[in-house]
């Protein structure tokens, strides 16, 4: 009675009109994140299950996420203007976000398969790794869908915080935890810069929503765009850290070397893809009008990444560090496509991200298996004679390295060709020349590893006794999950290397767009 009286005395409170939700668009994100939470729940109840079960479950959930995209893709490519937004324009629905969702989901599936054998070999407990992988991927998907700078920031943090933990996941290995804390400190540092950039852009435009920002910039001539430009600079610093572009790459070699190899596979593919998703949606799409302001900066970042990545990779003696530097130079190549700031450039970047994910996961997959217990045997010497200990692994790694080098008949060739021709289209000739030089230097580096695997003899073995030696070298067991993952990556790299059409077509259709919800829906939100 008293309560009722009290309630009656309150001023009438109007209910808040919450925005309309298009659940279908959120389906991939929901499957990935709810799948992670469900696995967490079940893993705490069913403790006796073999850890392989969780690996299979994580793979299935990720594949389900990728499959959900198919009907959405049909919907978005159905007519010219199917792209839209939902949830008060915070979530973008276009081909670009769907394409990257698939890339991220497949990266998770492959990394989860690699992780199974790794966890068993290292004697680590399982489910948490898969849970964190999937949650982190949910953050990546949020970034791909983000139409609002705050949403983008939250997605970035979900992605990164999970990866900090994943990098430190090998709790019995000091290097792993050092990698975790180094990544954490530098990651938090770069996030702060990114966030400061968001604040500047908010001050300069009055909104954090990309659609509002673009409309505002299109309608207004800014007398003073200093605040906006400062925002560009700070945001670029933050995102360049995440995609490991020079000069913001210091963490990469250390973290790649120390972190568990399956996690590195995920970092090199999905984290990079999500970072570039943010760069393209914010810079290429939203700030298209100001591209003469940010293009030179991306130009310099690209050139530095290409050169530093390739040349420093040569002097490395640790294969994992070498691949870390090579991933920096790949970031440079992708930035070449970003710098073009054209639809063709975006398509080239998407193609690059998709095929690079497979080759880099494959490479680190082979490293996972070949690294031996402790995941430490990664010096170039340890790879001597890998072709004898495991011809299949050596062959697979050869394919991936050829592809990373951009040798024809692999996907890597078309990826590099795509970004370089986009740069030439955009009249950035010098950038294209530097990219080609970097590709040549990179080819030397990859060939060095291949030569070591196939032709370098162990110190005491004779050259002509190659066949006889095979019995003395101990063969490497390839766990089933890792075997399947590596085989899939080889197939994708070779098949689409001969016949790149399908991926290329999809990448060209996956155009990023900023489209507000229909006016009727908008009304409910406001």
């Amino acid at each position, binding site marked *: 009675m008293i309560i009722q009286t009290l309630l009656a005395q309150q001023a009438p409170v109007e209910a808040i009109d919450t925005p309309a939700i298009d659940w279908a668009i959120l389906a991939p994100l929901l499957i990935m994140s709810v799948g992670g939470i469900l696995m967490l729940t079940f893993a705490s109840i069913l403790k006796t299950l073999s850890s392989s079960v969780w690996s299979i479950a994580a793979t299935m959930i990720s594949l389900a996420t990728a499959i959900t995209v198919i009907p959405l893709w049909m919907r978005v490519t159905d007519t010219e203007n199917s792209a839209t937004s939902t949830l008060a324009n915070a979530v973008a629905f276009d081909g670009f976000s769907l394409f990257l969702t698939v890339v991220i989901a497949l990266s998770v599936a492959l990394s989860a398969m690699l992780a199974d054998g790794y966890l068993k070999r290292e004697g680590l407990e399982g489910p948490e790794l898969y849970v*964190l992988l999937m949650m982190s991927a949910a953050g990546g998907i949020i970034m791909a869908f983000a139409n609002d700078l705050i949403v983008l920031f939250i997605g970035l943090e979900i992605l990164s915080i999970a990866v900090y*933990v994943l990098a430190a996941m090998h709790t019995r290995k000091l290097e792993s935890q050092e990698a975790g804390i180094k990544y954490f400190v530098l990651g938090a540092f770069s996030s702060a810069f990114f966030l400061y950039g968001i604040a500047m852009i908010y*001050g300069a435009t009055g909104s954090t929503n990309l659609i509002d920002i673009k409309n505002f910039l299109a309608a207004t001539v800014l007398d003073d765009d200093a605040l906006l430009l400062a925002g560009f600079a700070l945001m670029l610093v933050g995102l360049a850290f995440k995609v490991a572009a020079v000069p913001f790459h210091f963490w990469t070699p250390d973290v790649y070397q120390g972190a568990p190899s399956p996690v590195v596979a995920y970092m090199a593919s999905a984290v990079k893809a999500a970072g570039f998703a943010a760069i393209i949606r914010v810079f290429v799409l939203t700030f298209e009008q100001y591209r003469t302001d940010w293009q030179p900066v991306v130009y310099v970042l690209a050139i530095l990444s290409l050169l530093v990545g390739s040349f420093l990779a040569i002097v490395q003696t640790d294969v994992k560090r070498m691949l870390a530097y090579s991933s920096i130079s790949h970031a440079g190549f992708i930035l070449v496509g970003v710098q073009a700031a054209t639809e063709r450039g975006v398509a080239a970047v998407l193609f690059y991200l998709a095929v690079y994910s497979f080759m880099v996961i494959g490479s680190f997959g082979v490293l996972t298996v070949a690294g031996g217990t402790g995941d430490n045997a990664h010096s170039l010497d340890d790879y001597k004679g890998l072709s004898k200990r495991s011809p299949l692994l050596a062959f697979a790694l050869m394919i991936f390295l050829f592809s990373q080098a951009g040798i024809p008949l692999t996907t890597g060739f078309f990826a590099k060709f795509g970004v370089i021709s986009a740069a030439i289209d955009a009249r950035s000739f010098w950038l294209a020349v530097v990219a080609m030089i970097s590709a040549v230097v990179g080819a030397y580096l990859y060939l060095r590893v291949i030569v070591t695997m196939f032709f370098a003899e162990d110190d005491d073995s004779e050259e002509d006794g190659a066949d006889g030696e095979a019995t003395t070298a101990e063969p490497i067991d390839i766990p089933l999950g890792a075997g399947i993952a590596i085989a899939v990556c080889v197939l994708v790299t070779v098949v689409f290397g001969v016949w790149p059409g399908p991926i290329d077509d999809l990448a060209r259709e996956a155009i990023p767009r900023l489209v507000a919800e229909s006016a009727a829906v908008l009304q409910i939100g406001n």
Partner: protein
Amino acid sequence: MVEIAVFAVCAAIILVGAVGVIAARNPVHSALFLIQTLFGMAVVFISLEAHFLAAVQVVVYAGAIVILFLFVIMLLGVDQSENLNIEPIVGQRFIAGVVGVATFALMLVTLTGSEDAITGQPQATGALGDELTDANNVRQLAETLFTDYVFAFEATAILLTIAVVGAVVLAKRTQGEMLPTPRNTLEIREEAYQARIDARAAQLEANAAESAAADSASSTGEADADLVEASGTGDETDGGDA
């Protein structure tokens, strides 16, 4: 006039606290200076009419986050002093200074370059009321949070789940031995470190002998500097052994 006074006092509190955080040798002192900065910030929020945020600032930051810091410092017993006279990596402070000054200069130029640097569209998301009572402020925040930012709000659920899972994974006791670090890097490094300290001590002795022999006024300053450095090295060794 009152406004200026409040701003000046708060700015002083905030900046002194911030400098204290990075200059205090003892992490506990740093944490206390951090609280000082956070309180100053809360007052600034009130003067900017963000009343609810001011309360949240005190409750969440000072009440939860800094307590967590202090708790971990005490738990680990890492409240030993860090010697700040030795620059660990040559050129590190210079680079840090350049980064900091560059960021500050960028903002200074941006803001003072013209009369009105803040070019944003006013009230793009939702107007701040004129007469802000606390209830109004809270209501406005809630409305915006559950309409324009509802997706970000939901996404923070994933973020918090990850934080919990991550903390449990990392802080859990692990079974089994630590794996050896490759090529005994740790031992090599420790030997090198010990050698460096020995060299320092030898140099110090030599210097002392020299200054005793030639008791000219000019060498006193140099010897003093060496003494400071040497005592610093000693501190660090203690820390390492603890």
